[in-house]
């Protein structure tokens, strides 16, 4: 088993988005084995697996075609969306609906607002 790792020196952080995207696509069979490209705008997306080794790499005769994941609702959790897209693609579907994680509870006029919080988010 081998560990996939780029041979080049570590890049400086804060690369421009376009350059980062090119590096991600060119960088490897690491990303290509899973072959996921999430369809966002400027922010480059990570590969589904950082360094694929062992059975996955050994068994991959050729990288699969990239899977373009288009998330239509920003409330959808990315991990959930990617997993659902992989599953849908395997079943030959080009569209899948997933439950939205991180959901808000809208407050209608007249709602009784309980004044006791369950928790507080804060820096630590």
């Amino acid at each position, binding site marked *: 088993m081998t*560990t996939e790792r780029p041979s080049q020196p570590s890049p400086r952080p804060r690369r421009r988005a376009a350059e980062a995207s090119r590096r991600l696509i060119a960088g490897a069979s690491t990303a290509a084995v899973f072959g996921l490209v999430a369809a966002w*705008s400027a922010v480059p997306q990570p590969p589904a697996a*950082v360094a694929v080794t062992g059975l996955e790499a050994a068994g991959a005769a050729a990288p699969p075609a990239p899977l373009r994941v288009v998330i239509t609702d920003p409330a959808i959790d990315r991990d959930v969306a990617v997993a659902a897209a992989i599953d849908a693609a395997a079943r030959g579907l080009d569209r899948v609906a997933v*439950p939205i994680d*991180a959901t808000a509870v809208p407050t209608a006029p007249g709602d009784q607002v309980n004044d006791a919080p369950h928790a507080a988010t804060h820096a630590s």
Partner: protein
Amino acid sequence: MMLPTPLPTPVEAVPRQVAFTAMGSDVRILTLGASDVALARAQLAVHDLERRWSRFRPDSEVSRLNAACGRPVRVSPATTTLLTHAVRGWYATDGAFDPTVVDAVVAAGYDRPFPDLVESDPGSRSVTSISPMTSATPGCAGIGIDQAAGTATLPRGVRVDAGGIGKGLAADLVAASLLADGATAALVDIGGDIRVSGGAPLGGWRIDIDLGGAVRRASTPRMVLRAGAVATSSILRRAWMREGRRAHHIIDPMTGAPANPAFTTATVVAGAAWWAEVLTKAALLAASVDDAERLLSAAGAVGLLVDGDGRQHPVSGVERFLQ
């Protein structure tokens, strides 16, 4: 891969909770429908993750990785998950979140558990004999993770830290374990990084946003969450004096020094707590509200930022979560 199950309808049940200290923070776990045994297991799970991830424990998996000088180290699935998410976060934020900043954090003075620096307020936390970093942090491109063999490898000279992602990921893992253990709903709060899962209480989970000293007037926004996560980061906490100057733990990966950001505090809501926590670091380093908007929108998250003048900036639609 399994698809997530639909959210259950709200449940009414007797809430149970446990509070303790771990990961250098206050921890609070609230559940609906959990047994005493499940709550106890959840508490043990938090402590277990701290034992695996703390850089202040020489026998932790993270410490062993950092000491391995480029050799592969066998790690647990939880640590594999930590590293995988950390590297994904590095890529997704274009390096703004960087788990390899540990040497820079130590060089800035955070070389021991924070309570041990000096008790009391930042003005009296004083660290001397610091050699500040003056170069970019190494980044994650060379980190290797062998899922099949259960090993991880850091390039020689690269060290990692779970700070910036560990509390959030622990909250995610423990919330999931509570549901698997029979709870119908769970809120796991580790140092203010919060994950809620399962069926929410009627009306949702009510979570105050403690902005600390970021705003001059008393202002505690509240959000209501049915599912997902919220995390907050700030340069106003975990701060200390270094050679007469104020330092903090938010490192700018470009310089290796404590950042001088446009924002003092960032709160992010996302689908998972590890992701929310990672994004708070990146949002703090955004150059402007527009940059933060682009970052969070692309990430499928929303946020509330506070600038140096105490002004609050809702970003990417966070208003729908606020009461």
